[in-house]
């Protein structure tokens, strides 16, 4: 029997394993993907496929998207590098939007009359949360979100290594870079977010998905029956069922493309029909090994470690970039108050999330469950009361 428990960010906080009661609890593990040093080499994609023995996933044609030919995350592609080409106006806009996130996050410059909650909501974006739509800025925190943390969380800038020590100092720094380039080419490696409140996990009816002792969310291939409920449950579109129609290499000696069995001994793809996604290399973590993508990453754009440390480092990195005038930098997934309670995989982005194909305001579909349950409860109580009343009243008749 599964008990569908609604997410309770206040109780769970940043540690989604808190209620799992593992015998040997571990710190929550995650990724920090710093896209500002990504060279778009796709080593992460290959290292991931190689370790997990995921099949090639291609029609072997250009996918009309710059140097990106794997198109997106899916059952066979658990790391995906996006390539975005931008001209000067777009760079300036990104720089401005990033700067606004910071400015708005500073208590001193908060426009008078803006409700505190609004400032807080914005602040969370600065301090490493989801960069929300402007509606948040205007003072309407997304519905369903628990209250924002107190303003202590605001002071992320005070922890900057080498950066300004106080928020107000940041404004004194000339954050205009000497040279806005004419052009830039953004690269970013996407991956499963291993959400604090994981939609896929919440809706899985079979117990195939589980929360590991490292705080990650993993599918058990041998348990999953391929019902696909989780696919709709993921606000990021990450999880997917593996299709059996694996693209064949265009070779005369046609053979399945993925064959750990050795030359000349093709093997059928594994886990056909089963829900698939990044496991954060659960099968490496159990022996204290680094996930394949993070180990391969040539420039440490992908960092693996304890999430808390990673988020701290991520904030420092953003601050440093801002100090250099690269105000386009912002974090994605570090905010525990977003629609998924923060993510295990945190990203440093150089533009709005949408630019990278990331949802600006992801929400776990079960976020409304408490309210729904509450309402359903009220309704049931009402019905019960009504019934009882009916009996009572009817009995009187």
């Amino acid at each position, binding site marked *: 029997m599964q008990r569908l428990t609604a997410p309770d960010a206040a109780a769970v906080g940043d540690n989604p394993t808190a209620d799992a009661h593992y015998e040997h609890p571990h710190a929550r593990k995650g990724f920090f993907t710093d896209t500002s040093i990504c060279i778009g080499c796709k080593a992460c994609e290959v290292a991931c496929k190689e370790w997990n023995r995921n099949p090639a996933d*291609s029609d*072997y044609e250009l996918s009309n998207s710059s140097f990106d030919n794997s198109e997106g995350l899916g059952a066979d592609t658990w790391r995906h590098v996006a390539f975005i080409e931008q001209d000067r106006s777009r760079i300036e806009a990104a720089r401005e939007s990033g700067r606004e996130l910071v400015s708005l996050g500073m208590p001193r410059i908060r426009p008078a009359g803006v409700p505190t909650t609004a400032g807080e909501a914005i602040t969370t974006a600065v301090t490493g949360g989801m960069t929300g739509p402007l509606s948040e800025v205007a003072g309407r925190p997304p519905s369903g979100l628990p209250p924002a943390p107190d303003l202590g969380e605001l002071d992320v800038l005070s922890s900057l290594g080498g950066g300004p020590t106080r928020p107000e100092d940041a404004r004194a720094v000339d954050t205009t870079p000497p040279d806005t380039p004419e052009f830039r*080419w953004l690269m970013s490696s996407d991956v499963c977010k291993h959400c604090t409140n994981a939609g896929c996990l919440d809706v899985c009816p079979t117990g195939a998905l589980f929360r590991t002792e490292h705080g990650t969310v993993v599918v058990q291939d041998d348990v999953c029956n391929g019902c696909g409920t989780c696919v709709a449950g993921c606000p990021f579109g990450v999880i997917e069922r593996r299709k059996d129609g694996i693209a064949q290499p265009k070779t005369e000696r046609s053979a399945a493309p993925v064959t750990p069995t050795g030359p000349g001994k093709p093997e059928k793809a594994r886990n056909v029909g089963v829900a698939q996604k990044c496991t954060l290399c659960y099968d490496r973590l159990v022996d204290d090994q680094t996930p394949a993508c993070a180990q391969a990453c040539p420039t440490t754009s992908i960092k693996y470690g304890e999430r808390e440390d990673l988020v701290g480092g991520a904030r420092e990195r953003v601050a440093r970039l801002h100090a250099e005038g690269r105000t386009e930098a912002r974090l994605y997934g570090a905010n525990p108050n977003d629609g998924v309670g923060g993510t295990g995989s945190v990203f440093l982005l150089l533009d709005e999330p949408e630019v990278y194909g990331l949802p600006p305001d992801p929400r776990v579909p079960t976020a409304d469950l408490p309210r729904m349950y509450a309402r359903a409860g009220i309704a049931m109580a009402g019905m019960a009361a009504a019934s009882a009343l009916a009996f009572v009243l009817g009995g009187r008749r």
Partner: protein
Amino acid sequence: MANADCIVIQGSNMAEAHPVGFQWVTEAKARGAKVFHVDPRFSRTSAVADKHVPIRAGSDIVLLGALINYVLTQEKWFREYVVAYTNAATIVNEDFRDAEDLDGLFSGYDEESGGYDMKSWAYEPEPGSGSGGAGVGNGAAEDSAREDGAEASTEAAGQQYGSGGPDVETRLPRRDETLQHPRTVFQILKRHYARYTPEMVRDACGISVADFEELARTITENSGRERTTCFAYAVGWTQHTVGAQYIRTATILQLLLGNMGRPGGGIMALRGHASIQGCTDIPTLFNLLPGYLPMPTVEKQDLGTYIESIASKKQKGYWAEADAYTVSLLKAWWGEAAHAGNDYAYDYIPRLTGPHGTYQTVEGMIAGDVEGYFLLGQNPAVGSANGRMQRMGMSHLKWLVVRDFQLIESATWWKDGPEIATGELRTEDIDTEVFFFPAANHVEKAGTFTQTQRLLQWRHQAVAPPGDAQSELQFFHELGKRIRARLADSTDPRDRPLLDLTWDYPEDEHGEPDGEAILREINGHQLTGPDAGTLLSSYTQMKADGSTAGGCWIYTGVFADGINHAADRTPGGGDGPQTEEWGWAWPSNRRILYNRASADPQGRPWSERKKLVWWDEDQGKWVGNDVPDFPVDRAPGSAPDPSLGGAAALAGDDPFIMQADGKGWLFAPKGMVDGPLPTHYEPQESPVRNPLYRQQHNPTRVTLPRKDNLSAPEPGAPGSDVYPFVFTTYRLTEHHTAGGMSRWLPYLAELQPEMFCEVSPELAAERGLEPYGWATLISPRAAIEAKVLVTERMRPLRVGGQTVHQIGLPYHWGVGNDAVVTGDSANDLLGITLDPNVLIQGSKVGAVDIRPGRRPRGRELLRLVEDYQRRAHLTVDTGNEGVTGSHEEAGAEEATDRSERLDHESTDQPGAEE
């Protein structure tokens, strides 16, 4: 590299081609280093650089020359370093005339041979020094100067570390330490680059004056005592008709700035194959023997002449011992059969009579001289310039052996190559026998690779090779054994070298020879005396009297004390900052060459921040964080008698120990066959006139004027608008060279599945190219098709009042049926014109037209190419002039003549070959 304060990546797409090496750039950048990427394209390297500077392909010497000019005129050069460690103060003899004086030619050019007599480039001797009035050179050396060029420098990238440079007979050249004498190298240098101005950079390279100044300012601000700048290059510099001079230009700049031999400085060659350094050190190259000893040319009929041609016994530095290295090699190969009585079997080595490089070999195939061909992990049908010529060449062979992992295009051209599709070849008519042998890969055999920083790393064998797969070691050992067995009874003297060869390596139960036994032979050992059999620990132990053997002197020490140091694997390389306990770097496990230059003439580090090795007065030796690349007890102030020769003659301030005078060469009095100073020449195919000189091209470049290797007309000549655009070729991260190790792997193939071209939005608009649609590209040699990536990463450049469009083409795809992904090959578009120093082809710049749509199929494809050739009035002489303007009038008439003949002979009848 991680220690650099500024990194200039030019002629390299480092982040894409060497992603893991790029971590050091990322690290330096995180520490505040500025990173510039100078490249025709905005690539993934540009994306993470501080600044991308677009440049017209083939104009790098103008930019680097202008940086030299900036450094000189703005007084930014490192005076103490330059005066002490370079030949700036040396005076050149009065017969020398610069390219500035002769409009692009140096003194000594011979139009007949197309080469230089280098006599007039020599140093002027100190009066009364008795070293011969002429200074450099004797008759024999001059005769062979042209072919020796390749020997002196091998392959441009390897040259940096490999070759010691040629002999300089003038051991006591005249010097003027004030640098004021008009014939000092310093003053010549100043005059030579005076017209290489920011405005010239703008007009030749398409780089704005502001961008140039930012680059120049950043480099100079990050050079000197406290700071260092590093350059990184790859084949974007070497694959030009003046490729070796590209590197020379950077060397001059780095010497002036004091950035050689110091941490975070230098010029880093980024090389593309696991052992490409190794295969020049222990060369599978026609012109070299192991350790950069030259293959003997026919002029060197005896050992003495041969040794003299390499180095004088009396010159400074380690090349003076070339006789010991040579005799040890001969002893390693022919053992007892090599003795003093027969010049140590010197006559067992065949003689060269000119260039016998890979492109000459292909000509030899077409001519029917070369009958048999081995391809060992190489795919020339896709990977070599002028792919059609490669494939046609192979179709003339009697037999072909391909050893690879996959059925690469070079193994299958006879049934699915492009010439089968056009009808030029018919499978049923091709007589070539083809043998495909599956090869063992890197985990299925043990051995060493030498990586780009001269580091030898041993690989242990993990598993046995599958099926019939064999290592090259086993295949060639077996081949040699069988050949020797067949000839065992031969009395023919030509078979003696084979029969006397030392060829008995222990084998394991699978027949795999013991690689360590071979590495021991390479390392060398004592042959006589009480230590007979002892492995050598240093090449300084080698003797010319036959008492030592060693297969490659620069590798001596890799097996010192009987330990395979290439297999040293202390995690992290040990505690030392130079990680010297991981693998073994030649020579003598030194990690930074010429590191004596990291200290000032008195032996003190130039600065605390940049210290590497220094003189310890108390110990009386050089100490520091690296193995000193210098005689360890040679005190800074010592000035031995230069006539001692060899290492003994090195003064305490001669850091460049492999150079004949111990100094860094700003001016090359010898050794570079195309001039003592790098000079800008336009590529073989260029849309613009040379803005600096009347001389359009490198006058000494090696051309192959053939009907199957035509070149585009000169700018302004009739038909020059037929191929109006520049194309440049490059690698992608996701693939490896000609694709043999990547296009068959689904994980890599899916990441870059199709051949494409990169064009600017402006060019796309001009030619009606649809994004991600098809385009056809036509060069004077071939036509190919590619998907179109329209991108702002490609930018049209304004050069000398005209717009130059550059088209980017990755070269990984080939036509065949076997690979997971296939496509047309960019290298088919390329022609073959070679750098005269190293015989590398200029493959980074070519001329094309581009138009929308797929290319025609079958015979129509040939008609398209011919139609273009006809419209451009191409003849075999087009673009192949030596001295510009010398044949202008004759050329025009001949053009009509030849083009008619071309038409006549064009491949209209089926099965026509050449």
